């Protein structure tokens, strides 16, 4: 019983990171109709910035975070301006291929700028563990879960209550009708990529703080997050978040109770099953009305 509970707790905490990165993926998909396959390398590049400024240059985590956040904003802006806008319009595969190319480019850039070593970022997060009725709660992972939940809530508030957020949601439903309400497509596109990039940075720092920082270190998490987004429904933001938590728990359960081989293929298995049985995901809808 406590084994099951432990798997559940561990799963929820891992799921927080998946949820955040899945939100980053779904945000792009919902508004821009494409999948950003450079999500991981963008976030990782900015996590390296955090490490470089905070630890290597010794300026501390505050300035490190600031520079990394500015880097994420700049990167999101540059990708939108330099790749998405010139290529945009109509063809999903052009953008998918372009982001795949960007992924390769950024991974190499990371290696050139920051080296191929394995780093420990020593994030200023509490360590230790609580024991609650036989269930171990890792403090670092608990704080990470809290940050993931807070970031998700912040995005939800922006989308719900700010003028920009309302414009983004309107654009996601009907870009042309949104334009007729005065919502500029460029503004929506720009901010979608910037926000998505920032979410990627937060996820990257969180993953690095419980594992290590190295070139391509976020790729595995990206595959899980992409799976989570497909599971919850790529077109549904709450679905993507829920998918993240569900996947985290499924993974933890399979680690405890299933052969190792199952755990390894779990994401692929889930994508396959979801696409066969419920292609729109658990919470998504296949759009019927967009012309």
């Amino acid at each position, binding site marked *: 019983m406590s084994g099951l509970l432990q798997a559940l707790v561990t799963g929820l905490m891992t799921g927080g990171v998946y949820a955040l990165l899945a939100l980053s993926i779904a945000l792009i998909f919902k508004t821009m109709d494409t999948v950003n396959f450079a999500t991981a390398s963008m976030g990782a590049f900015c996590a390296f910035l955090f490490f470089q400024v905070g630890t290597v240059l010794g300026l501390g985590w505050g300035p490190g975070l600031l520079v990394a956040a500015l880097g994420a904003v700049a990167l999101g802006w540059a990708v939108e301006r330099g790749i998405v806008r010139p290529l945009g319009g109509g063809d999903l595969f052009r953008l998918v291929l372009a982001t795949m190319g960007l992924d390769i480019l950024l991974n190499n850039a990371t290696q050139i700028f920051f080296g191929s070593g394995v780093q420990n970022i020593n994030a200023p997060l509490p360590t230790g563990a609580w024991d609650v009725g036989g269930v171990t709660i890792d403090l670092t992972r608990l704080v990470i879960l809290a940050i993931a939940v807070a970031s998700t809530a912040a995005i939800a508030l922006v989308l719900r209550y700010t*003028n920009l957020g*309302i*414009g983004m949601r309107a654009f996601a439903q009907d870009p*042309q*009708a*949104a*334009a007729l*309400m*005065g919502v500029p497509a460029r503004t929506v596109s720009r901010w979608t990529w910037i926000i998505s990039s920032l979410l990627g940075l937060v996820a990257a720092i969180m993953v690095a703080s419980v594992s290590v920082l190295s070139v391509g270190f976020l790729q595995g998490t990206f595959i899980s997050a992409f799976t989570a987004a497909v599971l919850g429904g790529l077109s549904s933001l709450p679905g993507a978040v829920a998918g993240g938590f569900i996947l985290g728990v499924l993974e933890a359960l399979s680690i405890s109770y299933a052969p190792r081989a199952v755990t390894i293929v779990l994401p692929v298995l889930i994508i396959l099953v979801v696409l066969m049985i419920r292609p729109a995901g658990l919470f998504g809808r296949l759009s019927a009305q967009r012309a």
Partner: protein
Amino acid sequence: MAADPGIGDGRSGGLVLRGVTAGYGRSSVLHGIDLTVRPGQRVAVLGPNGAGKTTTLRVVSGLVEARTGEVTLDGGSLLGLRPDEIVRRGVAHVPQGRRVFPDFTVEENLRTAAYTRGGRDVDDDIAMVLEAFPRLRDRFGVRAGFLSGGEQQMLAIGRAVVQRPRLVLIDEMSLGLAPILIKELYSRLDVLFADVPAVIVEQNPSIALEHCGWVHVLAGGQVKASGPASEFTSQERLMQAYTGAVEGVPS
């Protein structure tokens, strides 16, 4: 071409289209549209299917780029502007098929229409819309995707009210609606946009003629006839204009 006062003076107020050509891809739809809407005037654009009525509106609101010609609103050119910039110039376009945001509630749809002023200062406008369309008050918190066609059309018009336009374009408002509802919608237009110049595209000429002062008949991407609505009330006269048998109105 029709004797239409206002044409020939680009600096006059209202909306002026001169020699506008436009199309989609390789096909061209508009072959030199000349059309004027003076301040306060409500103009019906009639014509058969494929005449270019919708495309004309889409050129004005920037959804379709004009290939040649001029489009000015109160003397300022609208050509080359993006749709959201044209909205900021004061053009509200109620598109064909309503195009309400299906996942937004009635309230959210109306608030979105105030985007250009930061979503602020919108309560009075919403109150005005709800007074004109009490059915929307009952459906205020309901997602627009669940509304009936008539309610969606009310909402689409309501969004245009919230936009506080200097010019309103309305495309095929009556499509698929019951006659009694169509009458109601047109009578509300008279109140909601009493002083706002309007271009109303209609497949159903009789109702448009009742509520518009001036008529342009489009066929084959050109204005085939123009004149006061009173001159088009006979079916025969209208059919002549539709088929292009008459080029203009004797005045």
